[in-house]
């Protein structure tokens, strides 16, 4: 019943946000709740690894390995975000940027947001999956427009419109899938647990067309270029913890959705089709994002584009489809979620101190905020795939897989683009991190809970990097089962 806990806690907290006065207190309750959720998700993971899959409420909620992996990722990032929110929101209140009422509003929405994100991987019915994803859009739109400035409202509008349109195409795709299922003379159902086993008898042609709609639709949500356009706006305007959630896990839930349908496509024997499309979009995302990263001026947009790049890597990884690649991609989902959250928290601190997004106006962060500065520096290296941090491992796995699949072009592209992106990252961050104190600024202390969030994530980045080296066999074993459906 771990899943019920996981789904229940955010709802309870959302309700609680109304009644509990004092955002400080509630912040602590909040992060305790998510800590419980985290533990529950890990237990769930254990269960699934042994049981294979779990269905509750007459398979209304149905989990297999893939779903539970995503649940774990979500719970980790949600916990970190909750931890970080305590200080962040308090700082905002002290600086009079938001009122106490608004803080509670924030907690309400963020909890709903988390709830719907938890819902996505646990839904069995593809229609409900769609609904859940659409709801995440609707809820988080408020969090994007939270500060109610011109930019943030514009970003929110673009976010909501573009994602809704994309998602409508996804709905179309879903319907086509169900059509393909219904004409195959089986009982009417939208459960992937029913579809996957019989995928081979479905009409390939319809499936292919349907998958295009799915890919474009959920791809929009996942931020695959060229449908990524909403992403930098939304991420750069959202509240910092929410930016972390958006780019850390929201994109991944969309990826999850794509994979759900992808598995059906693979099962129906159209593996090459799936591979080509995924790799195509992955490569486009890589190239485009690298260009934007190179000449970016806005700190948070820079991170947003790097999310696009990593989504590209992930989809290439899943596209390659060999166990190694899938293991790599799955790992990358986790690693990127963790690392990117770290970076967004750092960016949040920096921005809230300098009151600017423009990187030309930010100097000497390491002197002003030593802790954040060092964390961001290390995170920057972690994000660009330096050992001993975990992203290096997942990237090397994907590259190895690409080479051993013989797709040298993709591998070469990966290597080149990664180097370019690395270069531009170091360029931007060495500009903002080092250098002398800006006039009138003094070294700032940082409260504990903020530091804890950083350390928790950083521990995961480093720890995983090391631990996985030892656990690679289990990893591959899981990866082989991952896309079994």
């Amino acid at each position: 019943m771990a899943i019920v806990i996981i789904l229940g806690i955010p709802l309870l907290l959302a309700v609680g946000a109304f009644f509990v006065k004092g955002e400080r207190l509630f912040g602590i309750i909040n992060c305790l709740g998510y800590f419980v959720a985290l533990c529950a998700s890990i237990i769930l993971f254990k269960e699934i690894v042994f049981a294979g899959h779990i269905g509750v409420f007459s398979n209304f909620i149905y989990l297999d390995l893939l779903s539970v992996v995503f649940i774990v990722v979500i719970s980790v990032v949600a916990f970190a975000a909750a931890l970080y929110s305590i200080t962040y929101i308090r700082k905002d209140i002290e600086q009079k940027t938001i009122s106490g009422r608004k803080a509670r509003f924030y907690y309400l929405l963020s909890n709903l947001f988390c709830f719907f994100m938890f819902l996505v991987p646990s839904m069995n019915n593809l229609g409900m999956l769609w609904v859940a994803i659409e709801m995440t859009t609707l809820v988080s739109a408020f969090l994007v427009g939270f500060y109610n400035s011109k930019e943030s409202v514009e970003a929110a509008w673009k976010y909501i419109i573009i994602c809704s349109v994309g998602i409508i195409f996804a709905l179309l795709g879903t319907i086509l899938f169900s059509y393909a299922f219904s004409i195959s003379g089986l009982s009417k159902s939208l459960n992937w647990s029913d579809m996957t086993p019989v995928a081979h008898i479905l009409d390939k042609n319809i499936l292919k067309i349907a998958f295009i709609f799915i890919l474009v639709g959920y791809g929009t949500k996942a931020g695959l270029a060229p449908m990524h356009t909403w992403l930098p706006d939304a991420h750069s305007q959202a509240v910092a913890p929410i930016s972390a959630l958006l780019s850390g896990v929201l994109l991944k839930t969309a990826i999850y959705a794509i994979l759900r349908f992808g598995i059906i496509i693979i099962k129906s024997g159209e593996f090459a089709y799936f591979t080509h499309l995924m790799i195509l979009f992955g490569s486009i995302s890589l190239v485009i994002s690298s260009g934007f990263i190179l000449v970016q001026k806005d700190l948070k947009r820079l991170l947003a584009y790097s999310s696009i790049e990593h989504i590209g890597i992930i989809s290439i990884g899943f596209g390659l489809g060999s166990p190694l690649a899938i293991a790599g991609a799955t790992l990358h989902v986790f690693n990127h979620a963790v690392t990117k959250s770290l970076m967004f928290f750092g960016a949040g601190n920096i921005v809230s101190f300098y009151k600017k997004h423009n990187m030309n106006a930010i100097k000497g962060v390491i002197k002003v905020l030593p802790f954040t500065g060092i964390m961001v520096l290390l995170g920057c290296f972690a994000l660009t795939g330096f050992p001993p941090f975990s992203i290096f491992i997942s990237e090397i796995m994907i590259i190895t897989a690409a080479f051993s699949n013989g797709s040298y072009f993709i591998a070469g592209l990966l290597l080149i683009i990664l180097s370019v992106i690395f270069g531009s990252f170091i360029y931007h961050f060495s500009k903002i991190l080092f250098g002398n104190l800006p006039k009138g600024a003094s070294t700032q202390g940082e409260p504990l809970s903020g530091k804890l969030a950083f350390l928790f994530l950083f521990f995961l980045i480093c720890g995983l990097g090391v631990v996985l080296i030892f656990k690679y066999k289990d990893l591959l074993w899981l990866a082989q089962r991952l896309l079994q459906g």
Partner: protein
Amino acid sequence: MQGIILFALLVSTYLMVIAKRMPALIRSFRYQSLLLFLVTLLAAFNEKQVELYLISGMIILVKVFLIPYFLNFTAKKIKLDENLGLFVNSQLSLLLALIFTYCSWVLSVNLGFGQLSLLSVAVSVAFSVILIGAFLMISRMKAFTQVVGILVMENGIFLLASSISGGMPFFAEIAIFFDVFISVVIMGIFVFRINKLFTHIDVNKLSRLKG
């Protein structure tokens, strides 16, 4: 019978394409929803399913009354000038709409529906409604048209769903209805906000965030 309704539905969509002003757009959207309601009602008659009756009831409730009412309400509230701001003038839009219809017919054939069967007509109408909805969103300046566009696309999808797979599972349908309604409300709220901050709802002018 059903064929005629479908044809009328297509026509109502074309009416939207040539609509230059807000009320006209909303009115023709209302027609479209009504026709959609008729289609589902027919399906309900044929298939003798309770859910379908319920669903058609919801259509007439949500799409024919609630949403257009809400849209009109907001439109009055922010008393915008009623022009939609066309990128593409209505004649050309109509031409494009026809082309879209043709494309969707080709697509439906590709999908393997029988030539000129009622099903294929329904599917191609549905697709063309979806495409035209998307086209509306792209080719009209005002924020409202984008909301309407999404609704139109949603209608199209609903038509498709009800015509090819006899609708989705019941609760999914309900959820989707609910969802659509929520989204419209939220978009309405944002239209308010935009109007408050920018003193216009001309989304074409919303271009502070670049690159």
